[in-house]
């Protein structure tokens, strides 16, 4: 793939591929960047907490001290969720773009977020569920059902689930689910308030119980996702070529969609429907790494949490002492970035 980037674009013209050593070094640098971002995620927020108090919160935690509680029970889980959910969102975006060979693919196109939101509305309105810990499971189930439904619809016909059919099926299912959600929500204003979180996505108000509930799924999803690089490289050559190379295309696709459903369901349960980041970061990774999905996935693994946490920190700072939800920040920052991406890159070349 040729990377013709104009001077105005954030990335200068690059060689087709970087050496493994360069990419590996870059990976290590990203780990360092992530560590720095985590430091700021823990030190910055609506409440000013001094470094000595932060140190004490980790070494000699006293739950009755409000400042220490803020560090240990608010900012630490928030940061951890940002890391894991961010990684899941980035990986799911990268896999979706690879498997659908659709450069605009994101978890939204599969109706995954809408599936999760609809399941939660159902839980609140029909089953009367009130505890956040239960929402998580409904969000997860909804994401899974939406993915299976979309893939099932798209699989009708001889050629199977082609990118175009998938996109259409995703749009159709999203439309149906959205109207179901609206129909239920319209009748009850209190559900609307509770749903606000599930419409925008935020890292605020998400604490350890949510983190522990979603962690197993996030870890399983991330591990599965990191193993899909080779198969995605095969699919990138085109279905016929992949078949000719002996790849079991249909099975591979199913496996990837299962992985994506796990990743997105768990991530959406943890932090609501945050979309832009899963769309943009894989492109960013591709600009840096070239077409090899093994590297794209590895870079997405670190780049997405960095972007997500930076956006979250920005949200905490810009309207202080209030907070802007990370979903809103990503919308504001992400939309122009996405337009630039569409404008400057030849996106048909996935």
């Amino acid at each position, binding site marked *: 793939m040729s990377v013709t980037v104009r001077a105005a674009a954030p990335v200068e013209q690059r060689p087709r591929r970087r050496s493994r050593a360069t990419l590996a070094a870059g990976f290590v640098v990203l780990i360092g960047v992530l560590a720095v971002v985590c430091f700021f995620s823990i030190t910055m*927020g*609506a*409440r000013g907490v001094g470094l000595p108090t932060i140190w004490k919160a980790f070494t000699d935690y006293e*739950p*009755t*001290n*409000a400042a220490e*509680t*803020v560090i240990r*029970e*608010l900012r630490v889980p928030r940061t951890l969720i940002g890391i894991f959910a961010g990684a899941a969102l980035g990986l799911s975006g990268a896999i979706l773009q690879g498997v659908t060979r659709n450069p605009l693919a994101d978890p939204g196109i599969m109706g995954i977020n809408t599936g999760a939101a609809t399941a939660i509305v159902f839980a609140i309105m029909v089953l009367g569920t*009130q*505890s*956040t810990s239960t929402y998580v499971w409904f969000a997860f189930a909804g994401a899974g059902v939406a993915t299976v439904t979309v893939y099932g619809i798209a699989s009708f016909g001889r050629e199977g689930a082609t990118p175009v059919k998938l996109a259409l099926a995703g749009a159709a299912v999203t439309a149906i689910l959205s109207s179901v959600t609206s129909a239920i929500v*319209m*009748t*009850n*204003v*209190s559900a609307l*308030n*509770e749903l606000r*979180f599930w419409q925008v996505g*935020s890292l*605020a*108000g998400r*604490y350890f*119980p949510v983190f522990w509930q979603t962690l197993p799924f996030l870890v399983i999803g991330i591990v599965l996702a990191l193993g899909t690089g080779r198969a995605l490289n095969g699919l990138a050559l085109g279905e016929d070529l992949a078949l000719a190379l002996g790849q079991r295309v249909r099975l591979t696709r199913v496996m990837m969609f299962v992985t994506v459903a796990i990743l997105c369901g768990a991530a959406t349960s943890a932090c609501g429907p945050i979309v832009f980041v899963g769309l943009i970061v894989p492109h960013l990774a591709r600009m840096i790494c070239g077409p090899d999905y093994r590297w794209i996935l590895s870079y997405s693994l670190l780049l997405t949490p960095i972007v997500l946490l930076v956006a979250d920190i920005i949200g905490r700072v810009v309207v202080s*002492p*209030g*907070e802007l*939800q990370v979903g809103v920040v990503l919308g504001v920052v992400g939309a122009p970035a996405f337009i630039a991406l569409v404008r400057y890159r030849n996106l048909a070349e996935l």
Partner: protein
Amino acid sequence: MKRLLLLSAASALLVAGCGSSAETDAGDGGSWSYTSGDGKTYTADSTPQRIIAQGEAAAALISFGIRPVAIYSNDPVEENKSLKDLDLSGIKILSETYGQIDAETAAGLEPDLIVASYWPLEKAYGGFEAGVEDSAKKVARLADVVGPAEGDSVEEKLAGYEELAVSLGADVDSTDIAADKATFEAAVERFRTTVAGKEGLTSLAVSPAEDLLYVAVPGEASELSDFERWGLDIIDPDAPDPDFAYWENLSWENADKYQPDVILMDDRDAANSLQVAQGQPTWKNIKAVEAGAVVPWPAYWIHTYADYAEQLDQLSDRFETIDPDLT
């Protein structure tokens, strides 16, 4: 204004003189006027008969013997604290969701008056604030909207509703109303005494939400203004939201900013509010919470003497057990 005073004085005399027959006399009588919460005096050639009222306003009117033809509520009628125990047979429900009103049905009822409390901070009557849907705005154009103002006092607000009911032809000298008022007066006395006996007691009125802890500005909530006048010390938050000055919006990171002896918690969705609060790690860093000193705050909804008396007695019961020297 002069006309209004004359009218209400006249109808009061009539009512006192001839019992229930006065109601129709006043109702059929000539021109009508009422000085509303927005400071304007509204007039009509004949006394309005077909009234649409917001849920809480309807509760007030019904308590004074005026039944609206329809109501619109911010929430499901069975969950609305003012409405849930009322007999609403024959009254149309035009909305159970804030911001929406069934305008078509409302227009079909040909109302000649709409009644809701006036919110000075928003310069709007309840249900017609900025941001409501077009359907609601259309309803506001069907007839004059009137009602007493919120913020300063529930007592004054109820007097305003009583005055309105009288202007609409109600007989407010019934023994039921007198009994409710007597119970209310007694409850106020008990509240005053209880609070006076707890020297140094400080309180804070809050409404917990997933993203923020809302701290109420007492001067903008009628019942909190009353409580303050009756001797309760309610902490005034120092940084109210400039766009919606009913509240200071506290990040949960700063939940312990104010440390009262007792928390008054918005009771409109009590179970959910408590659950939301308890899910927040910093909720326990408020000393009153740790001490179990969280009592229900009948937030913004009280519109009858009977409800007020009941709530005041419950608060007095709880205050008697509160330690005023916690903080």
